[in-house]
């Protein structure tokens, strides 16, 4: 049996680091695709050189040709522009829509059976671009958002409680960004809800820090944004699909009535396996929680409406 194949589009910090995490799992050969051919090949060679001291032995190839994704089992899209000074939200949306559309066409042609994991921002909207362009079964297009937001919350909780990182689980739903909906009732330390361990004011602070998690890193790095945690989150999704792990975690998935939301990508708990989103887990939410999720969905819907003003498949 041939090894599975994972392609990662975009060899910036997030894409390259995700490639590395996947390599260390030793579950698939890896292709890293970026328009910058030299830098991409240099990075893959550097990864290969590290293999013997890191105990991984998978194949890693760098290429500037999207055809290199041929017959991938999973394709991760990280390509896109960060927001530059002077660029408004709509400019960024247009630029990244063009990039993601082009990549999606390549995937449709060369890897028609792949599960696609979307990382490019604005995340929920880019999921729509991929689904529309590829025309893939909607279970095969998944956005990386909730796992990242949740891992940040998990770290903040572990830090506040003073326990090991691995003890903490967290659930964060909704759109990726300010509109995320963290759920303290489903955020636990060894299964104990944090609502029983921390007071309301402390929890509110942790949730607020989670909402601003990405911006906090940017404020320190100044000229860059987070990549270790986003890449780890994306690699976790890749592993769940490649190894058919039936992993339950929050991801952006296309809803058709679940949670009372129609025809929209938004973060909800899903079961990830080899077919992509194998099940959408419908938590019993309180009215307040459901209200927050619906408000978040409306914000995403507004973004999709912006996309509709210029999007065409041509």
């Amino acid at each position, binding site marked *: 049996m041939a090894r599975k194949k994972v392609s990662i589009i975009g060899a910036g910090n997030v894409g390259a680091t995700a490639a*590395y995490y996947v390599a*260390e799992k030793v579950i698939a050969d890896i292709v890293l695709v970026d328009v910058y051919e*030299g*830098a991409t*090949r*240099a*990075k893959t*060679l*550097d*990864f*290969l*050189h*590290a*293999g*013997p*001291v*890191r*105990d991984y*032995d998978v194949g890693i190839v760098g290429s500037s040709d999207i055809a290199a994704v041929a017959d991938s089992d999973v394709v991760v899209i990280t390509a896109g522009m960060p927001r530059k000074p002077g660029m408004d939200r709509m400019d960024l949306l247009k630029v990244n829509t063009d990039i993601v559309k082009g990549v999606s066409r390549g995937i449709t042609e060369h890897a028609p059976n792949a599960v696609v994991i979307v990382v490019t921002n604005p995340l929920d909207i880019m999921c729509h671009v991929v689904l529309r362009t590829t025309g893939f079964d909607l279970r095969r297009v998944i956005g990386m958002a909730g*796992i990242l937001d949740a*891992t*940040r919350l*998990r*770290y903040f909780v*572990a830090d506040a409680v003073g326990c*090991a*990182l*691995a003890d*903490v689980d967290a659930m964060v739903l909704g759109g990726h960004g300010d509109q995320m909906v963290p759920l303290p009732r489903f955020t636990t330390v060894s299964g104990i809800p944090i609502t029983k361990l921390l007071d309301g004011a402390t929890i509110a602070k942790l949730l607020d820090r989670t909402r601003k*998690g990405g911006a*906090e*890193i*940017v*404020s*320190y*790095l*100044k000229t*860059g944004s*987070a*990549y*270790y*945690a986003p*890449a*780890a*989150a994306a690699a*976790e999704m890749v592993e769940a699909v490649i190894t058919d792990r039936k992993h339950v975690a929050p991801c952006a998935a296309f809803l058709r009535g679940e949670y009372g939301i129609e025809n929209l990508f938004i973060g909800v708990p899903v079961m990830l396996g080899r077919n992509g989103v194998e099940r959408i887990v419908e938590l019993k939410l309180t009215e307040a929680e459901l209200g927050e999720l619906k408000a978040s969905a409306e914000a995403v819907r507004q973004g999709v409406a912006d996309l509709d003003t210029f999007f065409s498949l041509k």
Partner: protein
Amino acid sequence: MKRVGIIGSGNVGANTAFFIAENRTAHVTLVDVREGLSTGKTLDMMEAGPIRGYSSRLTGADEIAAISGHDVIILAAGRVRKPGEKRIDLYLDNSKIVTELCGRIRELAPYAVVINVVEPVDSLTLLAQESLGFDRFKVLGVGGILDGTRLRYLVSKAVGVSSREVSGLVIGPHRRTMLALKDTIRVSGVPAAFFLGEERVDALLEEMRGAGDTILDMAQHSTSYWAPSAATARLVHSVVVDTRAVMSVSVRLEGEYGVTGLCVSVPAVIGKDGVQRIVDAGLSDSEQKAFLAATADLRSAVEQEKARRMAR
């Protein structure tokens, strides 16, 4: 858990912190004068921690005082090589930084094992050892272990086997005169030449010598950092966990391998005190000759560098 201080939060320093966390080796304090950079990078890594199951605590700081009392200190500051740059220019810039840092480390972490990754690595490991005044076995440079991992990858690819099966020691200066010990290049104990023939092995050795340059030329604006960080973290792991692994590291020789007063890579047992002992790999006559020629060449470079540094 022991504590490792890393000075320099560029690609090599930050990714060494990352690999130490991945290895579950130690707590890490990452320091850089560029304000906020170390805090941002370690926070990002800690946020990956729940997914990756880290048990290390990673902290960033803008002040070197944060490494006070740490068990291992890694020098990863300074700048990297530019394409086509002369070694002497890189040395002059980085030697100033290394001297200053060592002055501080001597007060802040007088019992630490110090690992140098700053290039040119052999010259600056020697300078660090002299500036620190530490026991020579407590000051190590990352040289041969990095060349060795590259060689092992190249051999594994050529034979078509997993790189886990391949051994290969590279000793001598961390420059083109490096010397791979032919007899140690083996696939599950079988000499690589059995699979590839002598000529092919020689061609791979040539490719290994140019590996760092190849990456620099391809990437243009950046040098390799992934393999160097991984190799450094492996070395740190052996010190902190006292694994007594045999690795090729740059260390000041005082008669071993026929060399005195120079830092150059040789196989050594690595443990809690740094180099526990130097291993005599039993060089052939021709290897010994090549080793001495390479170190003589390094010595004249080191002397020139020293003269230029003093004249500055």
